[in-house]
């Protein structure tokens, strides 16, 4: 089943055309990496999928709803099925971890038990800590725990592992892949780490000069003769 269908998506900021006609599809259970150099439009593309950015032309259908034509109420219904992890991750600085989880549980009207989520994500020792006082890695883990509270059908991650040490990076990916296997949810992420794309993503979308230059399976790209996704990226994208 298609979770996302994007056709001829265009977006500009003033005279700068950032997205010049993107075509994209995501199916249930897929993990898709969106790559491209800084300023290629990755974040703009993800923000449109998050339903928080308007676009100029094209069609974006998420969970069978054309988001451009939706009322605010309908949009909130769609958002119940979408969760995100942003970079940098920020929540209310003056709330403790447990309080944040409880607040977002209320936002998503989630039946999940906050204690269980804290146990799953090994957050017990941090539950009384203010979000602002956590290290970057733990902030990302809390953000992911909040994202999973809603049992989302679509998880969007904007550079989730940027700035994390290898242990934290592994831990974060363990949670993401477990979620994907357990729930069949779709994951879309951006990253500059091509090893992560190769290791964890089913498909790759390469944004270059405002268009989707390549949208293929990771396997398919490697079958084309590239030794790695890193080599593929370097050969396709100039500085």
């Amino acid at each position, binding site marked *: 089943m298609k979770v996302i269908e994007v056709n001829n998506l265009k977006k500009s900021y003033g005279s700068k055309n950032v997205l010049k006609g993107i075509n994209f599809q995501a199916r249930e259970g897929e993990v898709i990496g969106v790559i491209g150099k800084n300023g290629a439009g990755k974040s703009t593309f993800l923000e449109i999928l998050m339903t*928080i950015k308007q676009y100029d032309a094209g069609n974006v259908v998420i969970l069978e709803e054309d988001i451009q034509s939706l009322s605010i109420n309908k949009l909130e219904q769609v958002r*119940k099925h979408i969760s995100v992890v942003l970079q940098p*991750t*920020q*929540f209310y600085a003056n709330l403790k971890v447990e309080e944040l989880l409880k607040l977002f549980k*209320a*936002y998503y009207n989630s039946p999940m038990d906050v204690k269980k989520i804290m146990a799953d994500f090994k957050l017990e020792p941090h539950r009384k800590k203010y979000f602002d006082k956590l290290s970057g890695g733990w902030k990302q883990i809390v953000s992911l725990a909040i994202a999973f509270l809603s049992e989302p059908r679509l998880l969007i991650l904007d550079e989730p592992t940027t700035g994390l040490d290898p242990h934290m990076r592994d831990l974060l990916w363990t949670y993401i892949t477990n979620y994907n296997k357990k729930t069949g949810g779709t994951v879309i992420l951006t990253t500059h780490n091509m090893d992560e794309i190769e290791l964890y993503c089913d498909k790759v979308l390469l944004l270059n000069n405002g268009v989707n230059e390549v949208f293929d399976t990771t396997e398919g790209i490697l079958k084309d003769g590239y030794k790695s996704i890193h080599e593929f990226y370097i050969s396709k994208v100039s500085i």
Partner: protein
Amino acid sequence: MLLTQLRYDLLMFSRELFYLVFTVFVPPITYIFMGQLFGDTMYAGNLSYAQTYTPSFILLITFTVIFFAFGFDQVTHRTTGVEKRIRISPVSKTTLLLSSIIRSVIITSIGFILILVIGIAMYNVEFHIIELITSYGFFIVLNALLLIISSAVYSFFNNMKSALVFSIVILQIVILTGGFAMPINLMPTFIQTIANFNPLYHMNTLFIAVWNGQLTFNNSTVLSFGYISAFALLSLIVLGFMNKRKN
């Protein structure tokens, strides 16, 4: 959902020392301190210190709470990315806005009661139920107008540091030209001129009149009402424009 959001909004306010100092501690302490210095002085309209400065300091608390805990808070959330993260969540904008407004009304009402109690205990403020209810109603109207103005003013800021500097500077200007430090007619001419452009000066003058049952409709009060209304209307237009630009 509204009650949950409100509970957490109040909890966050109580944990922010910066807001507490400037909103709940400094104005009452200044009210007491000034009362010790000028408690016996008589002011315009043959009013005592308590009759003049009790409503003034209630308004000052209202201003600081709304500008710091509502306006500046919006900039903090916008610049740190909290606003974006919340916008992606399925919580309605109306719930967030209502919670913010109710939080401001609750905190400023606590300020209202705090100053009133200090006034009764230390400066023999007289307690007339009808005037008190009228004053509280007018105070709520001022609350609403200040919420609109502060939202519009802070919508221009995309940087926390500049918003903080602005907040501290504007607090000084408002205190000096709003009639909160000493009567405007005792100030230099240029301050008196600036005061005429300060909506807080007009709000203060009207609130003192309402508090003491002296509100009459003459050229001066009509001008004050007109200026405040025009300022609020302009703020609404700015808010509409900024929201459109954001989308």
